[in-house]
């Protein structure tokens, strides 16, 4: 897709975006989206993931259905959203007003050795999302659009999907909690669902 190389540096971009999330619950996909969230500052409202590729969006949809008064934002990568691309139809069909999706698209399988991904040639995830019936989409190619993106993801009516065309970067490892029971417990604790 890209005539010019992607420019957005994911770590400062995500840090600035997450600083504007308000009370949004964040569901990052496995790998780099999870590392990005943790690198921006730990929160029990981040549902870190270490596996189940393709399931970040269905998981976020489940949370959005169960917590209709809370904004829920799924932050995933191009590889993961492509693996579960049909979930966009399920999201569109259920039309949760509180769900937004951000795809960090570096056009590569970054976690496994930067092998080329399917968005590197002809596939445009924002266009696909429109076809599935996601009412509003946005494509971001500049860091400077982060404030506009934050409004789109955290304030407007969902469901919406944004694609951020991010650069391949060498970022230091930032590994959060990996015990899922603990991640789930602190997430539910923050929602008042579990006892401490």
């Amino acid at each position, binding site marked *: 897709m890209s005539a010019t190389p992607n420019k957005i540096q994911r770590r400062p971009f995500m840090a600035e975006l997450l600083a504007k999330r308000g009370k949004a619950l964040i*569901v990052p996909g496995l790998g780099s989206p999870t590392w990005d969230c943790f690198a921006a500052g730990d929160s029990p409202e981040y*549902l870190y993931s*270490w*596996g*189940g*590729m*393709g*399931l*970040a*969006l*269905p*998981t*976020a*949809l*489940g*949370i*959005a*259905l*169960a*917590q209709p008064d809370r904004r829920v934002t799924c932050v995933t990568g191009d590889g993961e959203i492509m693996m*579960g691309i*049909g*979930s966009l*139809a*399920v999201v569109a*069909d*259920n039309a949760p007003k509180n769900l937004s999706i951000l795809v960090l698209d570096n056009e590569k399988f970054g976690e496994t050795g930067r092998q080329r991904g399917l968005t590197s040639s002809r596939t445009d995830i924002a266009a696909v999302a429109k076809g599935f019936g996601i009412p509003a989409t946005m494509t971001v190619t500049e860091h400077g659009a982060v404030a506009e993106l934050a409004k789109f993801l955290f304030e407007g009516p969902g469901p919406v999907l944004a694609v951020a065309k991010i650069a391949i970067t060498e970022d230091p490892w930032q590994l959060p909690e990996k015990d*899922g*029971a603990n*991640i*789930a417990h602190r*997430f*539910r604790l923050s*929602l008042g*669902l579990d006892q401490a």
Partner: protein
Amino acid sequence: MSAPSDGWSDAVFREIKARDIEVVCTVPDGGLTPLLKMIEGDRAMRLVTLTTEEEGIGIATGCWLGGKRAMIAMQSSGVGNCINALGLPAAFRAPCLMLVTMRGQWGEFNPWQVPMGQAVKPALEAVGVRCFPVDKPAEVADTFIAAADIAYNSRISAAVLISQRVIGAKGFGQK
């Protein structure tokens, strides 16, 4: 809504309601039709139609993380689509309840259903899912209760496997 004639869907629906399960995710199957109709007709419930069954594992896990109960209803062929996904509720120690109508089993007409039908129970057990097979219509509701209660109370994955003997084999008009 007209009463279903299969003798078990009404009872299972009652138990779903009694347990406050509000979301049922499905790729539909013929044997599930009466139950899915009841769910669709209930204004307090949401029937989520999936593109592939594994999505239901994510949605049900997300619902629990957000404080609601959900389950997945599928044909046995869909179990194969769920195997890696079942690591998600296991990792989160989240409950996961599945209702599976079997194919490839009792008098199956279609050979394409047989390999997955045979693999359902060992494949589910290999990823740690407790299986509750049932082959008599009168025992479906009790089996559902047993599976649902262990799933939600012990926060594990459990699957009710409804035999093709209960559903009846589809003959495609052939002998």
